[in-house]
């Protein structure tokens, strides 16, 4: 195949990827968008085979590894529960990162294959591009592995901080730049290996100080990195499809990080520097205030007599896998003519859009699910707010108490409802380590139980 035709086809696959993302602007067009993405990928792979024109022993092995990966990937995609989506995405990011490192290594070892010069005499521009690709890829890999371990619960979600952390990270960051510069001057292979090693270390050090509830930002950020790594490799390979995709994914991840940071009213650097949610002074004498607590029967009674209910789901619902029984409860309410809608805070859950996926899984129609800005005014005209597994995103202190660590964060105005039902296992503070004054309000009824168990009991009582 002529290189010109190939370049044109790579461009086509890049355009199909743009259309894949464009499709996600509404659920109706999204499925078609995904098909565009799949065709783009197919074109890119077939064109690469046709350009290489090498259908020998290696080709057989390529097909074997391709199908092996395909089978593993498909099994994972069908087996994975929707609640585990954040760690799945983190795990997938680590694979992209590692693949980028591997491609960069093979380009460094055999530059002639990629038309980049000869060993020890690689074009400077290519060397910079592959170093950047390898370095960002390595950071993506080790960072995503840590994120995966934290999300999967293998590693504690609480931030790991030590003295001199930022200075250490700064020094390592500088050493990455220095080694890239020296690599370009000297072409010493050792520097390339050192570069990759310290990049792995950076990814690790960057993510350990970041706490569990900041994971939406971390995952989005790693998403962005995997894009920039792909773009770096795209420049090395002079491949348009890879450059376009890298730019798309890079900006997509960056925008998601921005949206997540805004949802928490924190700057990106504040999140990255980490340590938020570390229990430094939570021992602030928590006064014993009276709390009204109730049982499933009370909750069922309140909701049955309401005319409108808003459900506020959070990460606790995902942990308890309560989305299905929640839908059952809502079905009962709707049968009794009660208006029910769902309110989703941008940072509810452990990744962007996490709650929406879980509700979709439980067959909740997406036109009943609303974003913060669209529903926040409705709380004042609503009888009951049913908060299940959420906490900090409802805390009125974010609006009233300038001393609070979450002051200024956009929150759902659940306290404006006539009554608030709060499903929670205990009175323990949320992730931010702060008390929620909502617990002690007169119109709040605490339901102390596991989210799933409590919702099941409410369903029984509604019958």
């Amino acid at each position, binding site marked *: 195949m002529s290189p010109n035709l190939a370049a044109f086809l790579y461009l086509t696959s890049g355009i199909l990827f743009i259309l894949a993302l464009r499709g996600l602007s509404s659920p109706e067009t999204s499925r078609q968008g995904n098909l565009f993405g799949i065709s783009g990928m197919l074109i890119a792979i077939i064109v690469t085979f046709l350009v290489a024109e090498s259908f020998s022993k290696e080709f057989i092995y390529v097909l074997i590894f391709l199908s092996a990966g395909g089978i593993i990937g498909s099994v994972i995609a069908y087996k994975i529960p929707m609640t585990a989506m954040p760690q799945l995405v983190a795990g997938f990011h680590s694979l992209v990162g590692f693949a980028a490192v591997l491609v960069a290594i093979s380009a460094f070892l055999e530059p002639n294959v990629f038309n980049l010069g000869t060993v020890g005499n690689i074009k400077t521009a290519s060397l910079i591009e592959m170093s950047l690709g390898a370095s960002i890829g390595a950071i993506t890999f080790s960072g995503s592995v840590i994120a995966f371990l934290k999300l999967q619960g293998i590693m504690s979600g609480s931030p790991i901080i030590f003295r001199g952390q930022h200075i250490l990270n700064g020094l390592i960051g500088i050493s990455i730049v220095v080694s890239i510069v020296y690599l370009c001057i000297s072409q010493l292979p050792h520097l390339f290996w050192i570069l990759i090693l310290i990049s792995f270390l950076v990814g690790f050090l960057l993510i350990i100080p970041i706490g569990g509830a900041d994971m939406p930002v971390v995952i989005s950020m790693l998403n962005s990195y995997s894009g920039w790594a792909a*773009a770096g490799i795209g420049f090395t390979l002079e491949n348009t499809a890879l450059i376009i995709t890298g730019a798309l994914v890079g900006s997509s991840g960056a925008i998601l990080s921005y949206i997540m940071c805004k949802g928490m009213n924190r700057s990106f650097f504040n999140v990255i520097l980490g340590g938020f949610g570390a229990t430094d002074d939570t021992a602030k004498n928590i006064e014993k205030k009276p709390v009204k607590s109730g049982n499933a029967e009370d909750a069922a009674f309140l909701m049955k007599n309401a005319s409108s209910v808003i459900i506020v789901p959070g990460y606790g619902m995902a942990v308890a896998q309560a989305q299905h029984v929640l839908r059952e409860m809502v079905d009962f309410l709707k049968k009794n003519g009660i208006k029910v809608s769902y309110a989703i805070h941008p940072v509810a859950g452990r990744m962007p859009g996490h709650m929406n996926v879980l509700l979709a899984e439980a067959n909740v129609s997406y036109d009943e699910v609303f974003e913060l800005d669209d529903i926040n005014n409705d709380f004042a005209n609503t009888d009951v707010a049913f908060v299940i597994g959420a906490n900090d995103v409802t805390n009125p202190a974010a609006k009233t108490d300038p001393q609070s660590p979450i002051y200024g964060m956009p929150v759902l105005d659940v306290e404006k409802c006539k009554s608030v039902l709060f499903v929670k296992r205990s009175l323990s503070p949320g992730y931010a380590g702060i008390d929620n004054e909502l617990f002690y309000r007169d119109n709040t009824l605490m339901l102390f139980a596991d989210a799933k168990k409590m919702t099941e009991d409410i369903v029984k009582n509604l019958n």
Partner: protein
Amino acid sequence: MEIDPFIFRLSIFILSIFIGYYVVWSVTPSLHTPLMSVTNAISSVIIVGAIIASLAGESNSNFEISNIIGFFAILLAAINIFGGFLVTQRMLQMYKKKKKK
């Protein structure tokens, strides 16, 4: 003086960042999770580099080191491509509007 082809690639890159910026802002927030899984799948187009590395060299000689690295990279990227697109498809199937009674 001729323009370095690098500049053309850089232009494509910068324009794509702009396209990405506007396209991603138009994605509805409820589809942010599928957005992440699909961007993950498409970034595995890096498999192109892995294939080139795998097919390099004389075919009758033994595998070179870049072939072996390439095979491994293909495996990783293929997991991502299949896993990413299929899990996205699985999620998108669930986003349904129920018919009003």
